[in-house]
């Protein structure tokens, strides 16, 4: 098991290198020069050239990449072209916000999905099941920015309620933080719920067909004991797996929700970087999100039974 894991982690290295090359090249193919963006439109060509040399932009692409990748390995993500700030501290600060949002979305999603998924499976093909499945399909089919916008619209129009503007951490003021994060978390939570619900339903339906469930029933156990005691535990692996995968994807998917609700998280940081052509920021931000995906990959590889 130990050597297997080490092998897997080693096999991740080329993927990580590939990812960093991809991110680097994509953004360096772009016309438009960070140095002239930094200095503005009225800069003299000489000044731009000096700055280019200072930033290493006049060197060949390969040595630029090596310089950048070498910095990454030492925890140096570079500085923002626009503000001149160190990127890594910014990323960490914003990551905390995105993390809180993600956790809340997962909690909301799961609280909705598991009970309804179970209900839908044990009453399969009933009216309840149909209603739940239609709602799930809607959850998958309505884009999250549409859900978010409609939530904002409904609450402001009919209840005259707006989320607070300033972002507060949960550990500073839980009540205020709840108000800040609730709408975006519900928006993301609905998408989470739809995915987890589908998985819960199919995993449960498969388990309920198994012999040990029939045995458990034959022993005279109540429906509750059969479902909660026997079926739930045996269906949990695929459900837990999809949850692990979702956390990684939520961190990436928060781009839209953060933009929509003006939450200064990691997604918004990357997006602002794109709008302002601040490529060191985009590179750093995108890579950081990937670190979380790597954790998921490792997790999937730890359990060889889990495939996706």
């Amino acid at each position, binding site marked *: 098991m130990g050597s297997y894991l080490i092998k897997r982690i080693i096999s991740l290295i080329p993927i990580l290198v590939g990812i960093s090359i991809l991110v680097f090249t*994509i953004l360096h193919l772009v016309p438009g020069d960070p140095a002239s963006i930094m200095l503005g439109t009225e800069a003299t060509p000489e000044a731009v050239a000096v700055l280019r040399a200072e930033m290493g932009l006049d060197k060949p692409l390969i040595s630029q990449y090596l310089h950048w990748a070498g910095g990454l390995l030492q925890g140096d993500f570079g500085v923002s072209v626009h503000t001149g700030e160190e990127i890594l501290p910014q990323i960490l600060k914003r990551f905390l916000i995105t993390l809180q949002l993600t956790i809340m979305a997962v909690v909301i999603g799961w609280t909705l999905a598991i009970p309804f998924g179970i209900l839908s499976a044990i009453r399969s093909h009933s009216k309840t099941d149909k209603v739940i499945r239609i709602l799930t399909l809607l959850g998958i*089919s*309505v884009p999250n920015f*549409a859900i978010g*916008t409609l939530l904002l619209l409904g609450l402001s129009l009919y209840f005259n309620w707006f989320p607070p503007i300033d972002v507060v951490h949960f550990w500073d003021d839980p009540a205020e933080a709840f108000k800040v994060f609730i709408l975006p978390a519900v928006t993301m939570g609905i998408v989470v719920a739809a995915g987890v619900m589908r998985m819960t339903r199919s995993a449960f339906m498969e388990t309920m067909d198994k012999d040990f469930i029939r045995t458990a029933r034959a022993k005279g156990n109540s429906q509750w004991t059969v479902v909660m005691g026997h079926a739930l535990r045996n269906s949990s692996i695929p459900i837990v797996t999809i949850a692990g995968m979702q956390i990684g994807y939520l961190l990436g998917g928060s781009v839209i929700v953060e933009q929509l609700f003006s939450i200064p998280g990691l997604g918004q940081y990357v997006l602002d970087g*794109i709008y302002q052509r601040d490529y060191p920021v*985009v590179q750093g931000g*995108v890579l950081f999100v990937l670190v979380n995906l790597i954790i998921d990959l490792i997790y999937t590889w730890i359990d060889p039974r889990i495939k996706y």
Partner: protein
Amino acid sequence: MRTFRRRFFENKTAVVCLIVLLLLALAAAFAPVLSPYDPTQMFQDHRMEGSSGEFILGTDQFGRDIMSRIIYGARVSLMVGISSVLVSVAFGTLFGLIAGYFGRWIDGLVMRVMDVLFAFPEILLALAIVAALGPGAFNTILAIGIVNIPIFTRTVRGAVLSIKNQEYVESARAIGASTPRILFLEIFPNVTAPLLVQASLAISGAILTESALSFLGLGIQPPDPSWGGMISEARRYMELAPGMIIWPCVAMTITILSCNMFGDAVRDILDPRHRGK
């Protein structure tokens, strides 16, 4: 094929979704005939009006007819959705056939590259590519197309692995058929079923991604109408003219819902494990 057709028409969901999708495609194709006005024409005296006989779904902040914009938006959504999936299917099939058929280091190389692409959340990679290429319809198609290549590569490769050692492939090899002939005439026709299911599900994903990119201002550029862009513009006026937001949302939901349900239904029909349940 005949049993497929019969099962298809017995499945009410599949038929209803197909009809909805065909209607949408027709609406998109005949947008100039069907839409009451030009989607970019501004009626200065009719800004942000509600539904009326003159403007069935109302008008937006420039006095443009929302109904016409939604019909033209369908054009954009379907075009981007379908063409980007075609891009992914073309490349994904090619890579999948090669990786699955040749195996060994070629397989390893192709699949590691796919792992790299697959590691990105869809929207993030699409954003990065659009950021590099610049916004616009063509680049949006390209970005979404590239993002989805790994899914199709995996699907095709899996199917190839399961059939490449069957007798008809072997006999083709025995009579001296060339490798491209074996790949495209013997193997390819037998991987179309999983490809079809994956493609119909991917179209809805592609439409979602396009609308998200347009919503962020990096996809289709105004004044061209796109549903995501319309929702984004409408946010500023949502309390004054809720219709500006609600109608594009409804249009998107119907489209993506029918794509998803259609994909699910086709999978049920094709997959023997789901049959009869």
